[in-house]
Structure formats: structure tokens, C-alpha cells
């Protein structure tokens, strides 16, 4: 499923807290990422704003409940709704997470880690292909933060992502913050993770904040991006070249101007990293 990857620039997560400001002020944001599940409704205010914003900005759809690694059958009604939303707003791509979030009988409300085994690999790859058949487009999968890992692991997380992209044709949403969080929690080198991913498969980057408890780090997405993640982000762009970048905030929403300021920082640091890359080429 080879295809060229467009560079959308620097985007923000679309949140209802900011709808009015976006429409009134047309801020300098290159694109918005929408949480797919927020718009799987028939009519109403959310879709009204989404349609209005879709007329002015490129959009990307980002899901949180696909549960691509789950033990249950894929939810075909959910997939059809995702497809319908994609037909409606024509996103540049559709993403979700490499995780499982639904168990045998319950929605578990979290992005749970998978064992990185051959069994998981073939299970997930088959389901990715199913999803792609319904959506008729590549699925983009994001690495999640984790706090435990399985003793049965046969691959590192980056080896697993490589193999999954190869087997299924999926693309990758590299969350730089999540790599940092997991690297601190599990004691691996974050740069080793990133430089070993297949560059041609990386469609998007996420930047976000977390809570640092000293001995461990919890991915909360409710703080500004910290300096080590900014450093890793620049190193990533120097390595990869331009990749569409999204500044994510999932809670403790600040005034919109604060997010715009942080997005400007991403843009400046990104430009510097890409300039260094050009000098070294």
C-alpha cells in the first residue's frame, strides 16, 4: 500500500472548548486532529462546528476505541460509522492506537499494552487488514505509553511496529512523548526506539506533556511539552525530515492563546531541526 505522505504542517487537537474562537479568529493553525468518537452522532452542535471547521482547515481523524489488539471481534458498526465520518469530512488520514481497550465484556477506557509476541503480531496484522478493507485506506497506528510489559515479549516495541507496518501496510503515528514516557518507565533509550522505526511509514508525530513522578512518568497529556521531549522531537525531525506534527492536549485545557504559543514553539524548533538537516545533507 505504498503512497506518498503529505506534510500538513503544525496542527492542534480540535476541542469543543475552542470551536468559537477557531471560527471567529481563523488562527494560524495548519490543520486540526479530531477525536473520531466525538462526532459519531446524527446531527447536533458538534457536527455543525466540525463541518464549519472542515471547510476552512485540513482535518485528520484520530480514534480512541478501535481496540485493534483486543480479544473481541472488531466492531463492524463502529467501523462503518468511522467510514461514514471519513466520507463526510475527508480527513487526510485516519488513526487510532496500537493497543487494546475492550476486554471480553467491558469497555476498559484505557490504551492497554500488548505483549510483543508473534501471536500478537499476527492477531493485530490480520485485524489491521480488516479495518483497512472497510475504510479503504491505510490505518495509521500510534505507539502508546506503558507502565508494565509482558515477560513473554519476543520483540522490542520498535521491532513490533516495524513488523506490523511490513505485514499489514499500516502507517505509524509516532507519539514522541509516549516514547519518552515508556523509555523512562522501562529503561530503554528513546532515540534507539525512534531511529529504528521505518521512516517511510511515519505519517504523523504527536507532542504532549506528562506527569513526572521522579521514579516513573505518567502520560497525562495535560501539561505543556517538556524540554527532553522537545529535544527528542528535534532529533526526530533531523532524522526523518518534515513530518506533520500535532500538539495534543487531552485535559486541563488552557486558554487557546497558550496552545497557539506552544504550537509556534513547535514550528520554530521544527524549522531549526529541518534547517540543520538540510545543512548536513
Amino acid at each position, binding site marked *: 500500500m505504498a503512497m506518498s505522505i503529505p506534510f500538513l504542517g503544525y496542527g492542534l487537537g480540535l476541542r469543543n472548548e475552542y470551536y468559537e474562537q477557531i471560527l471567529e479568529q481563523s488562527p494560524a493553525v495548519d490543520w486540526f486532529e479530531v477525536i473520531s468518537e466525538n462526532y459519531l452522532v446524527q446531527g447536533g452542535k458538534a457536527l455543525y462546528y466540525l463541518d464549519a471547521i472542515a471547510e476552512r482547515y485540513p482535518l485528520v481523524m484520530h480514534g480512541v476505541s478501535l481496540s485493534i489488539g*483486543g*480479544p473481541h471481534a472488531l466492531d463492524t458498526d463502529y467501523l462503518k460509522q468511522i467510514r461514514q465520518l471519513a466520507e463526510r469530512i475527508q480527513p487526510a488520514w485516519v488513526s487510532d492506537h496500537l493497543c*487494546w481497550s475492550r*476486554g*471480553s465484556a*467491558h469497555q*476498559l*477506557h*484505557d490504551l*492497554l499494552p*500488548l*505483549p510483543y*509476541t508473534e*501471536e*500478537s503480531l499476527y*492477531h493485530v496484522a490480520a485485524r489491521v487488514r480488516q479495518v483497512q478493507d472497510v475504510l479503504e485506506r491505510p490505518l495509521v497506528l500510534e505507539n502508546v505509553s*506503558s*507502565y*508494565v*510489559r*509482558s*515477560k*513473554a515479549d519476543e520483540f522490542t516495541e520498535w521491532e513490533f511496529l516495524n513488523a506490523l507496518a511490513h505485514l499489514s501496510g499500516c502507517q505509524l503515528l509516532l507519539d514522541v512523548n509516549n516514547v519518552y514516557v515508556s523509555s*523512562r*518507565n*522501562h*529503561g530503554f533509550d528513546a532515540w534507539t526506539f525512534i531511529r529504528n522505526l521505518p521512516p517511510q511509514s511515519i505519517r504523523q508525530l504527536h507532542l504532549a506533556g506528562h506527569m513526572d513522578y*521522579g*521514579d*516513573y512518568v*505518567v502520560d497525562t497529556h495535560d501539561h505543556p511539552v517538556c524540554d527532553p521531549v522537545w529535544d527528542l522531537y528535534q532529533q526526530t525531525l533531523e532524522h526523518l525530515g518534515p513530518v506533520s506534527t500535532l500538539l495534543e492536549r487531552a485535559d486541563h485545557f488552557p486558554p487557546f492563546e497558550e496552545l497557539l504559543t506552544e504550537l509556534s514553539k513547535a514550528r520554530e524548533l521544527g524549522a531549526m531541526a529541518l534547517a540543520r538537516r538540510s545543512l548536513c545533507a
Partner: protein
Amino acid sequence: MRLTDWQLAFEQHLLSETPVANSGFAATLLGGPTLDVDTGLAIYHNAYISVAGRLAA
């Protein structure tokens, strides 16, 4: 342990009343240099309880 059995054990941990996992499931996991398995599992358990509680309210 098969993938589905491991996931079922993880699910049972999240749905249990205590953030401390049963020793059989915990024995299938690794923590990190300064993050032990019990703390890692408690992070997941607390997150589940927090969201499930919000949704039930």
C-alpha cells in the same frame, strides 16, 4: 500464557476492587528500573476506576 488469557487476566485486574493484582498475573509482567510491576498495574487500575467512576456519576 495465550494472548487472550493474558488479556482476560489484565481485564480482571482492572475490574477488581483492589489495585493490587493477583500474584499469578503479576508474575507474567516486567516493570522497569524504578517502576515496579505493582505500581505499574496500580496506574492502570486507578485510571480505569477514575474513568468508570466519572461515567457512572
